[in-house]
């Protein structure tokens, strides 16, 4: 027992909040992410997370709570992507790239100004890579509230979203406003992604947004089942990652522990590969 669960795993407050926040973020990411994968918008999802980091670094510079910086910038970026890339998927790719480039440029400036004025050069690493173990219990209520907003948007538009993702022509024929659904969806994506980028870092945010849903969509064709499977895979990968990261404090080389992001990404990737193998067996047999 002790070999798997290192002493103190179940009594440690930091681990508790990491488990709770990790699960909340993983569920939101999985549900929003299923549509991200269906709509082939992984790039937008990743871009919003990284651009959100710009807001985070600006907020650090201004000395306010980074979470609001993350969300504010991500919503602005989502609007910019929507306005620039309205015409077709092709220009959407370019629009996302331009917004991401401009956002990262600003991040460079804010981090630089922050480093020169406050000598916190570590900020660029914290903002980009994040860590579940620095999330405090006080942040849990606002994280939960924002998650509910993102989920509410997805659930209210669930049928429209599904229809516009799978068959846009049919949706348009039925009188669904593609622009409205797409804008609402990007808003939900911006909230979900900036939430997870702030708490677990931009890297993990993309991993949890894309990996579990892509795996789930390999395993089942029914959308509702895919949502449940994706959430399950996301939470499982997150908890296994936290467990191993906690255990790794006794591992070589440094005794500081291996980063939790590394473990979660590895688990997500393994689940994806397994699902792909299994899915191929399904289609063959």
């Amino acid at each position, binding site marked *: 027992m002790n070999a798997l669960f290192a002493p103190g795993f179940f009594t440690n407050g930091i681990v508790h909040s990491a488990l709770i926040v990790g699960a909340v973020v993983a569920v939101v990411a999985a549900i929003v992410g299923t549509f991200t*994968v269906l709509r*082939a*918008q*992984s*790039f937008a*999802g*990743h*871009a919003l997370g990284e651009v959100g980091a710009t807001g985070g670094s600006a907020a650090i510079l201004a000395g306010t709570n980074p979470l609001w910086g993350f969300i504010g910038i991500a919503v602005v970026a989502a609007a910019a992507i929507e306005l620039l890339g309205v015409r077709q*998927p*092709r220009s959407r*790719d*370019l629009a*996302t*790239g*331009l*917004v*991401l*480039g*401009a*956002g*990262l*440029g*600003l*991040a*460079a*400036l804010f*981090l*630089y100004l922050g*480093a020169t004025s406050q000598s916190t*050069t*570590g900020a*660029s*690493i914290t903002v*980009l*890579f994040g860590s579940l173990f620095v999330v405090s219990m006080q942040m849990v209520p606002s994280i939960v509230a924002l998650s509910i907003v993102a989920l509410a948007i997805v659930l209210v538009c669930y049928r429209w979203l599904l229809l516009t993702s799978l068959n846009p022509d049919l949706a348009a024929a039925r009188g669904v406003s593609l622009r409205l659904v797409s804008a609402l969806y990007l808003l939900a994506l911006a909230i979900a992604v900036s939430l997870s980028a702030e708490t677990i870092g931009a*890297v*993990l945010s*993309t*991993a949890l*947004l*894309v*990996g579990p849903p*892509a795996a789930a969509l*390999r395993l089942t064709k029914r959308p509702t089942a895919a949502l449940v499977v994706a959430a399950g895979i996301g939470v499982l990968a997150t908890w296994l990652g936290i467990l191993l990261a906690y255990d790794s404090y006794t591992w070589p*080389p*440094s005794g*500081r*522990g*291996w*980063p939790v*992001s*590394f473990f*979660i*990404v*590895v688990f*997500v*990737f393994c689940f*994806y590969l397994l699902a*792909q193998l299994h899915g*191929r067996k399904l289609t063959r047999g």
Partner: protein
Amino acid sequence: MFSSFMVNTWVAASIVAVVGGVVGFFVVLRSSAFVAHAIPHGAFSGAAGAALLGLNTVFGLGVFALAGALGISALGRKGRHDVATALGLVVMLGTGSLFLSWSAVYAPQIYALLFGEVLGVSRAELWPIAGLAVICLVAIALVYRPLMLNSIAPELGEVRGVRDRLIETAFLLVVALATSMTVPVVGALLMFSLMVAPAGAARSLSDRPSAAIAWSIAIALVTVWAGIALSYALNWPLGFFVGTLGAALYGLGRLVGTRRRRLVLPTA
């Protein structure tokens, strides 16, 4: 600004801009902005790994960029391209976070790799940059026709015997090569901006490929030169200027492009 230690910087940045402009034209044509972002960003992890082992960072960048390009094109065969790219990127960055936690890399060094370092180019570093640039441009020239055909009309290309997968992999390898030479100068996060913004602007200025490539190179050069000058004067990071100037020039290009089209087609 033009003193002797800055000469290398100007030369290196101009080479980077030319390669970025040419490769970027195809990035925009193929809608591969995500891959163009993922490969340099992920390759940053390789630099962290090289720092851990005490090797040259360009070596680490190259290994990770090539491995990333091959991995993404292998994953993309069996799944959606954007999913493959996202997963390839996060696996590389996850490994990078592991390397960073093991090593005691200076935070400013990481910052320079992410956002670029204007004053960091020495004469010895200039040769590998020039060499890789020549390889990139020659590679593009060799696959120019099939790549163009595959980018514009993949079905027609397939009929003519252009292998879609082969071209995709070859193109990703060129992006990887371009990455390993440019990241130390422009930074992992802003390299793709140099590929996307000038080429995007160029496409709204001209529909002819050769003219668009020329515009793309010219705009990339202007972006980088103005970026260096401003960066030198204000001491702000080069990445900031490359990212924001690129977006601004793209906006300008689109304005000019639509106005010119209106002049040509006044009735439309």
